[in-house]
C-alpha cells in the first residue's frame, strides 16, 4: 500500500490551522495551565475559557460531580474579564505561537457586543466563539441558545462588532430543533457553528439528599454525551453542509475525533478528556495522521461529513 504522510493542515472559515484539533473552552484554562503538558503551538487552536465584560466570580461549590462516563459542572463562568484576557493571557499565548480562539459570554446582548468590541482591537485573536449556550447561568429561560430570536440578536450584534473576524456560534443541545437555532445563527452572520455544549443534568447525593452541585443543575460532558454530539453535528451538517463546524462532545481518542469529523465537523475540540489525560489533544493528532494514512485520505477536508448512510 502506498503510504504518503497525511497532511493535517486544515482550513476553518478562512483560517489555516496546523491540524484539526483544538482544546474546548473551559477545559484548558487560558492555555497556561495546559501548557505544563502540551506545546500549545502544536494544536490547531486553543479555545480559551469564556470571558465576560467584567470578571465573574462564578458559582459556589460544589461545582462538579462525576457521573457514569462523564461529569456535571456548574462553574458559572468564573473568569477575570476580557480586559485581563487582552492584557495578560493573549500576549502570553501569542508568545507561544498558539492559535487563539476567544470564547465570549454575557448576560445581555449588550454585554456580548461590548466584549466583542474590545476584541476587535486586540491583535492576534484568530476567531471568536460565542458561548450563547452555557447552561450554568442562573436562569434557564435566559439561555440565548434556546431561542432563534435571541441567538440571532447576539450573533448579529457580535458580527457587527467583528465584521472581519470568523465568528462561531456555540449551540446548546438542549433544544427541540437544533437546525432552527443553527439557521438563526447562520442568517445572523455566523461564519461557523460550534457544537455541542453540555447537556443539562442533575445529580443527587442520596445520603445527604442534596444536589451534588450547589447550582442544582449542571452541564453534562464527557464520553457519555458523545453519541448526542455526533447526532447533533450530523443533523446540522446535513442541513447546512457549507457551514464549518467545530465539533466537541466526549472526544477521548483520535478515532473519536474522526467520528465527529465523519459526522460533519471541520475541526474538533477536546474538552473533558483534558482532565482525564492532559496530553489527549496532542496524542490524538498522531492518531489522526495514522488513520488518514491507513485509509489513504490526503486531506482532513475529505473526512468532513463523509459518513456513508444506508439506502
Amino acid at each position, binding site marked *: 500500500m502506498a503510504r504518503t504522510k497525511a497532511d493535517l493542515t486544515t482550513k476553518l472559515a478562512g483560517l489555516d490551522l496546523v491540524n484539526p484539533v483544538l482544546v474546548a473552552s473551559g477545559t484548558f484554562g487560558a492555555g497556561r495551565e495546559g501548557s505544563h*503538558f502540551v506545546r500549545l503551538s502544536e494544536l490547531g487552536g486553543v479555545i480559551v475559557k469564556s470571558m465576560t465584560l467584567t470578571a465573574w466570580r462564578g458559582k459556589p461549590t460544589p461545582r462538579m460531580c462525576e457521573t457514569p462516563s*462523564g461529569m456535571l459542572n456548574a462553574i458559572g463562568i468564573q473568569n477575570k474579564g476580557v480586559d485581563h484576557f487582552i492584557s495578560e493571557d493573549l500576549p502570553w499565548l501569542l508568545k507561544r505561537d498558539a492559535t487563539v480562539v476567544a470564547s465570549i459570554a454575557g448576560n445581555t446582548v449588550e454585554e456580548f457586543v461590548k466584549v466583542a468590541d474590545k476584541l476587535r482591537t486586540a491583535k492576534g485573536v484568530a476567531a471568536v466563539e460565542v458561548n450563547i449556550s452555557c447552561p450554568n447561568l442562573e436562569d434557564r429561560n435566559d439561555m440565548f441558545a434556546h431561542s432563534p430570536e435571541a441567538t440571532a440578536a447576539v450573533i448579529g450584534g457580535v458580527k457587527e462588532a467583528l465584521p472581519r473576524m470568523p465568528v462561531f456560534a456555540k449551540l446548546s443541545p438542549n433544544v427541540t430543533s437544533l437546525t432552527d437555532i443553527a439557521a438563526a445563527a447562520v442568517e445572523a452572520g455566523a461564519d461557523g457553528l460550534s457544537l455541542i455544549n453540555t447537556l443539562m443534568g442533575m445529580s443527587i447525593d442520596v445520603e445527604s439528599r442534596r444536589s451534588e452541585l450547589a447550582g442544582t443543575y449542571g452541564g453534562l460532558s464527557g464520553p457519555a454525551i458523545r453519541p448526542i454530539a455526533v447526532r447533533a453535528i450530523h443533523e446540522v451538517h446535513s442541513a447546512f453542509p457549507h457551514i464549518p463546524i467545530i465539533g466537541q462532545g466526549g472526544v477521548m481518542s483520535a478515532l473519536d475525533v474522526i467520528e465527529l469529523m465523519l459526522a460533519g465537523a471541520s475541526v474538533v475540540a477536546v474538552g473533558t478528556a483534558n482532565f482525564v489525560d492532559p496530553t489527549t489533544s496532542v496524542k490524538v493528532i498522531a492518531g489522526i495522521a495514522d488513520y488518514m494514512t491507513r485509509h489513504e485520505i490526503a486531506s482532513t477536508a475529505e473526512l468532513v461529513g463523509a459518513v456513508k448512510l444506508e439506502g
Partner: protein
Amino acid sequence: MLMASGEILTHKRYGDAYHSLTIVSPEIGEQARPGQFVSIRLREDSAQILRRPFSVYRMHKRGGWASTIEIVFDIRGAGTRYLSQLRAHSTIDIVGPTGRGFVMPKRRAHCLLVGGGIGAAPLFFLADELRNEGHRVDFVMGARTSGLLLNPIDVRRLASVYRMTTEDGSQGDRGRVTDVLAETMERCGTEVVYACGPHPMLAAVSEICMERETPVQVAVEELMACGYGACMTCVMPVRRPPKRGEDPADAVVYARACTDGPVFNGASIVWHGSGTEPVAADQQELTPANVAVRDTGLDEVEDEHAPPGN
C-alpha cells in the same frame, strides 16, 4: 508538574483501614514537596473517568535508587477500591506533583502538626522535612477510633511531644483534636500550626490559631475535576485585602485548591462559605486571588502560579 507512569513497588496496610502504595516515579518523586499531591488515573475503560488526587504521604530517596513516593488512602468508592486491588509491578498513570505545598519556617521554629483521620497523610512528609531542616515537630492526631489513627508509631518517632485523640476514647484522649489543641500549643510553645483533615476540623483549628495569633497553614481537600488549574471546580473562598473603599465582605475570591492551594493560610479562608453555603452568588469585579500566608516569619507564598484564566 508532569504526567508520568509509575510502577508500584509495594502495597502495604496501615492499621485497620488504610492502604499504602509506594510508587516508583523518579521525576515526580524528585520534585515533590510536602503538601503537594498526585492525581492518579483509574482504568482506561472505567466508567469513572476522572483522576483521583492523593497527598504525597512520604517521599523516599534511597542512595543510588530511583526515588519513590508513597500515598495512603482509605476505601471510599470505586476509585480507591480499584487502587486497593493493585499489587507490586502494576503500572499507574500519575500527574504531579501538584499545587503549593506547605511553606517552611524561615527561622528555627516550634511546629505543631494537626491531623484528623486519613487527612493527616501529608503531615508525615512535612514532619520529615521540618526535622531535616532542624525545626521542632509536635503532633496532635485525632480519629474516630484507634484503628483509624494514621501510623501512630511514626508519630511517636517524629514528634517531640504528641497527643492522640479518639472520639470513642479507644486511644489517647476521648474527644477531638481541637479539644487539646490550645493546651498543646501552650505546652509546646508552638510558633506555627500545620493542619490537614476534614473542613470542619480545619475551620476550628484556624479559629483557635487566629485567637492566639499563631500562623496556621491548612491543606484542604476539594472535589477536583482536572487537578491542574484548568477547570475552576475546586475553588475555596479566600479573603484578599479589600480595595480602597471596598466592603471587606466583598473582598473574597474563589481560589483554586489544586494550584493556588491545596495549602492555604487558614486565617484567610472563608470557612462557612465552602461546602454548601454560597458566599455571594452575584458576579462582581475581582482581582487576582491573593492567597498569601500571613507574614509571620514564614515565607510569603510567591505568586508565580497566579491564576491566569481563573
